[in-house]
């Protein structure tokens, strides 16, 4: 199987990374090389194997739902790319 240019562009759209044609062509080559390498897994029959979903064999812990940090608005907004003391600012979304 090989990945064509159209697929590369589709993935870049899904990944929200804009790429120009030159980059897309380069990526097409890289991705095909990498997937050729990955296809090795098809040699193995895994029909009766259970997928490993967690390496740490523990069940998730429950905890009380309680507020531990208060008044952290300023901390949260501190690294905001566009200055505003109360909100995150983004380009207009609703027309």
């Amino acid at each position: 199987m090989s990945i064509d240019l159209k697929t590369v562009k589709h993935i870049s759209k899904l990944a929200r990374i804009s790429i120009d044609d030159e980059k897309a062509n380069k990526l097409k080559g890289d991705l095909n090389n990498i997937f050729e390498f990955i296809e090795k897994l098809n040699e193995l029959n895994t029909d009766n194997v259970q997928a490993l979903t967690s390496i740490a064999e523990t069940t998730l812990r429950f905890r009380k739902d309680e507020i531990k940090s208060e008044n952290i608005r300023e901390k949260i907004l501190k690294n905001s790319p566009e200055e505003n003391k109360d909100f995150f600012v983004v380009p207009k979304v609703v027309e």
Partner: protein
Amino acid sequence: MSDITSQSLFELTSNIKEKKLSSGEITKAFIDRAQKSKKLNVYVTDNFEKAIDQSKKFDSNPNFDLKLPGIPIAVKDLFCTNGVRTTAGSKILNNFVPTYESTVTQNLWSQGAILLGKLNCDEFAMGSSNETSFFGNVQNPVGENLVPGGSSGGSSAAVAANLTPVTIGTDTGGSIRQPASFTGTVGLKPTYGSCSRYGIVAFASSLDQAGPMTKNVRDCSMLLEVISSFDQKDSTSIDYKRNNYSKELSKDIKGKKIGIPKEYRVDNMPDEIEQLWKNGISYAKDCGAEIIDISLPHTNYALPTYYIVAPAEASSNLARYDGVKYGFRSPGQNLIEMYEKTRSEGFGDEVKRRIMIGTYVLSSGYYDAYYLKAQKVRQLIKKDFDDAFSKVDAILTPSTPSSAFKIGEKTNDPVSMYLNDIFTVPINLAGLPGISIPAGKDKNNYPLGLQVIGKPFDEQNILNISYALEDKINFKNDISDWWLSE
């Protein structure tokens, strides 16, 4: 007394406790050396001024009961440090100043350590040579224009060059052990769940672990003891009784069963590495260990599995970099264009490649063929180790299939770069602890490492085996300080 910066952590803590050295003297010595070592490019951000203040503060009211009393330590720039810029080697986090502290670094400061600065690494820890960093490549102190390994390349170089007594790195597929091997230093990746992932910039959450990088095995045990802890803030942190690793460190490995997996003898592996491995085996025998041949039949499938699982998790984790809440933003006409431009300009090529792989293998119609398949093979790889550990106490392998290579040598071929991690990746997939110790040199005089792999939570055992081997190997790095400037 030997030069301050060449002392081990053990020596420095002893000298501080015996009042032969002050924290101020030690901190100043490391800062002075760093200022003459800019050529290595190990620092992304230094914390020198604050470090000097903190060392004076320690000296005016010292607490010698702490495990790292007034010891200055630089850490990989993947750990969030409160008030000190944390970049993960990426343009997208170039201006990010965390308002919280990672648990692992907090454990260091709680035991008296002082932050020297943040060390260079591959962007988002994706790389094996430190060449994907937005802040430029790092020079390996072992030789000019040589990569220090990666992704914890700034960390390995800083320890080898005596710019920090010890450091902490992170290891997702070999990012502690491979750079340790390339620089003649010791690096340990703990069992998954041993060290908290809270506050570490996430790469692949089911594989990431923080671990110590040091000059020798004893220092490694001392540092692991400090950083390994149960943490409510990490849902995969495991609550178990951790050893007093340094106290229980012992060279007595008599009767230990050590497995030698035949699948780790790969094509084109240099004879020197084969010889290094043989020497390691005979040293282990000399120490009274029993050598047992074992098989890990799915070893060859580990890298392809890793290159599905790790990018899949990375593409999900890195979805948070959207230019909205923190980090770099590139303006756009609308929200979608802003996302696309921010991510296109903010991420480097390797990171984009991996996000694309991850997005593809998780996309509709391909999930079963790739991601599910990889999770099944991961089960088989884990089972290989479970079976092996029913017969042996530990496994001995080479750390890497080659010594350090030249800067630029592998940057145009992602797959050949990925092959660096062939011996380290299976251990992450199985969640096991592994340590790399320097074990010899190749014909160019570049260091080579051996890896000891243990059962889950059996860090003490692999530390002890490494401690015994280290004594027999008697490795000397003989670094010439070629990079120093006035």
